[in-house]
């Protein structure tokens, strides 16, 4: 038996008091919610602002975990599949289709709060936002659709109207643009992000992606023609422009070295209208070419089934994605509002008259392809091989068609394909 001194007694008492204090403090700690979001300087910043207000109003501390897009996608899927369950609310889009079954249906919450009222019509429907078994699992909070942004002066000089029915029309216009504007390339695009080439294909290809019997399948002649159109267009990129980052592609347009940039408008419109922008007042947006659809970017919030406090998660969704903060998020962070009322705001309408009509028209027709990550990567990587001359359009599309046969269509994607008219009838 160790001898008990006054010092050891005091130390023991202190240890007991400290442990009790820690236990009391942890039980009295504010509720906590973990939220995963893209680290973009926009979505994460907006979340931090809303989180501060949210804590003041509800006492719930929202921990924001922000990651670059690819990391966010990987972290979200790994968190769900491994059962780590670190995040209570997740940001994502249709590319999470492989893990839709891990998300909780939110229909009851939507109905209880009549949440869809006032949202852009059709946004909360299969093929645009995410559904499983007919139940809504994704709540939209940031909308964008591929856009064609053009330099008005260069178009005027070339005598071109920015109304293109197809990518072949764009290619034809490129010849005139280059002839009329010295040292200018026709267009820029984030070619270094391999998946982005899909934006051209989805709009140029106006057929289905899923066969009657529920298999991934293309209309091969139509898909080949669409791929050939893209390959022809690729010749009009700037010199050494086949591995551009988003920033490089956008800067080329700002520096007036290209007449068009084809990108997600929310990434660039604020900077084009900044006071120091050389193209301020000299740019516009055209209706997106092609008979397919502009590629939709619809950021949504998902609640994993493992989230313990779903009411708190829903409260956070309403605070972050609801109409109250929509205007602030749009003005300060260029997060495309999913609420119709934002686009009726007279002040914003007047300020953005040079591109909002085309942008809003894009929202109305934009969709997501009903493709799993594997199926989409196969298509877009093959398209990259086609435009780089590694394989012909016919051989490349035939290869996609044959390899898609081995890739199962997730149930949620079948639902989306049927809902958005992208399944063969």
């Amino acid at each position, binding site marked *: 038996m160790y001898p008990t001194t006054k010092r050891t007694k005091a130390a023991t008492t202190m240890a007991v008091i400290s442990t009790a204090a820690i236990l009391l403090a942890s039980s009295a700690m504010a509720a906590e919610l973990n939220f995963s979001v893209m680290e973009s300087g926009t979505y994460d910043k907006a979340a931090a602002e809303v989180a501060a207000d949210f804590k003041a109003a509800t006492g719930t501390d929202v921990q924001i975990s922000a990651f670059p897009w690819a990391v966010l996608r990987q972290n979200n899927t790994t968190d769900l599949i491994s059962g780590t369950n670190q995040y209570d609310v997740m940001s994502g889009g249709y590319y999470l289709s492989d893990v839709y079954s891990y998300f909780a249906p939110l229909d009851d919450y939507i109905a209880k709060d009549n949440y869809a009222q006032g949202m852009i019509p059709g946004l909360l429907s299969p093929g645009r936002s995410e559904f499983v078994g007919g139940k809504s699992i994704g709540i939209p909070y940031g909308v964008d659709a591929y856009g064609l942004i053009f330099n008005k002066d260069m178009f005027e000089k070339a005598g071109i109207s920015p109304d293109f029915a197809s990518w072949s029309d764009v290619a034809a216009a490129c010849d005139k643009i280059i002839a009329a504007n010295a040292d200018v390339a026709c267009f820029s695009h984030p070619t270094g992000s391999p998946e982005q080439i899909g934006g051209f294909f989805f709009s140029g290809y106006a057929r289905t992606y899923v066969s009657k019997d529920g298999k991934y399948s293309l209309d091969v002649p139509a898909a080949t023609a669409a791929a050939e159109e893209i390959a022809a267009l690729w010749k009009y990129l*700037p010199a050494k*422009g*086949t*591995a551009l980052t988003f920033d490089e592609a956008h800067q080329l347009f700002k520096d007036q070295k290209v007449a068009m940039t084809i990108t997600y408008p929310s990434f660039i419109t604020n900077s084009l209208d900044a006071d120091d922008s050389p193209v301020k007042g000299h740019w516009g947006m055209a209706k997106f070419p092609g008979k397919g659809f502009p590629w939709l970017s619809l950021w949504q919030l998902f609640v994993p089934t493992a989230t313990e406090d779903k009411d708190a998660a829903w409260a956070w969704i309403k605070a972050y994605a609801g109409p109250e903060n929509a205007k602030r998020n749009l003005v300060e962070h260029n997060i495309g509002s999913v609420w119709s009322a934002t686009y009726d705001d007279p002040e914003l309408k007047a300020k953005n008259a040079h591109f909002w009509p085309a942008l809003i028209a894009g929202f109305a027709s934009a969709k997501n392809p009903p493709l799993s990550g594997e199926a989409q*990567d196969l298509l877009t990587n093959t398209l*990259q091989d086609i435009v780089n001359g*590694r394989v012909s359009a016919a051989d490349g599309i035939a*290869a996609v068609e044959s*390899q898609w046969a081995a890739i199962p269509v997730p149930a949620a994607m079948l639902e989306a394909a049927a809902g958005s008219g992208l399944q063969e009838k």
Partner: protein
Amino acid sequence: MRQPQPYPQVRRPAGIVGRLEARLGESGILLLFLVPALLVVIGAQLYPLASSAILSFFDWSLSRSPTVGPFIGFDNYVRTFTDPIFANSVAFTVILAVCSTALQLVCGLGIAMLTVGESYTLRLVRTLLMLPMVVAPVAVGTIWRMILSARVGPLNQALASIGIDGPNWLGDPNWAVFSLIMIDAWEWTPFVAITLTAALTSLPSEVMRAASVDGAGRWTTFRYIVLPMIMPIFVLVAMFRTIEAFLTLDIVFTTTAGGPGYTTHTLSFWIYQQGLKYFNISYAAASSWVMLLFCVAIAGGFLLWRRRITAWQVSR
């Protein structure tokens, strides 16, 4: 005359160790002491290997189900050998491994010949040369991606300043392949150089002096004495670097993401995508086993070559 001394008695340890040694013998007790380490090896190495081998015969995609699907025999292996992207990845990986390793061996040997010695300057140079090797491969890829940016990267800016129109390093399929070979060689040449420097330092000085006395020139000494003597180490280094090149993932991920298209997909990158992006666990396991067997065959070839060289050296 001194009397021969008897060998000292070996003292047996007392207590439990002594009793165990008496029962199991010296070898037995040594084996017993190895058991904890063996258990760690089995747990950390053999179990995952065996588990992945078993999984490769089942149909399991984590995105479809959290539990393992039905037994499908060799279907995953058949798919591996008929998958054009897998074949494309094998082709690029072989090109990367062969070209990069060859470049590393040539440059590494050259650097080793130039920096062998014990002067302060040479030691400093060797330390500096090690730097690329100690940078995290992800950082290496990210730095090189910026350097090789065709339009705004410093390399093409530097080339432009001397009137050379730099290529589209990462955007052109052929240049992308070349760029990755160059990056891999840049990162790992120091490893080859350091290892070969150690080999050169350990060469017996008498042989060199004898060659010099016999009038052998520098090239003759290198060709007929130095190279044959360091050959076993050279082959070993070649084996390490070839196998490592087969495992290249991080620099591909950070520079080209396997592109343009499928141009720079390595085997490891493809397996990573199948397993951790698309969650096709059993297909990734089958592909991994094919790659493992491929690497074992390569290692076997190199070791056989090394044995023949050693036998040749002994016979001389």
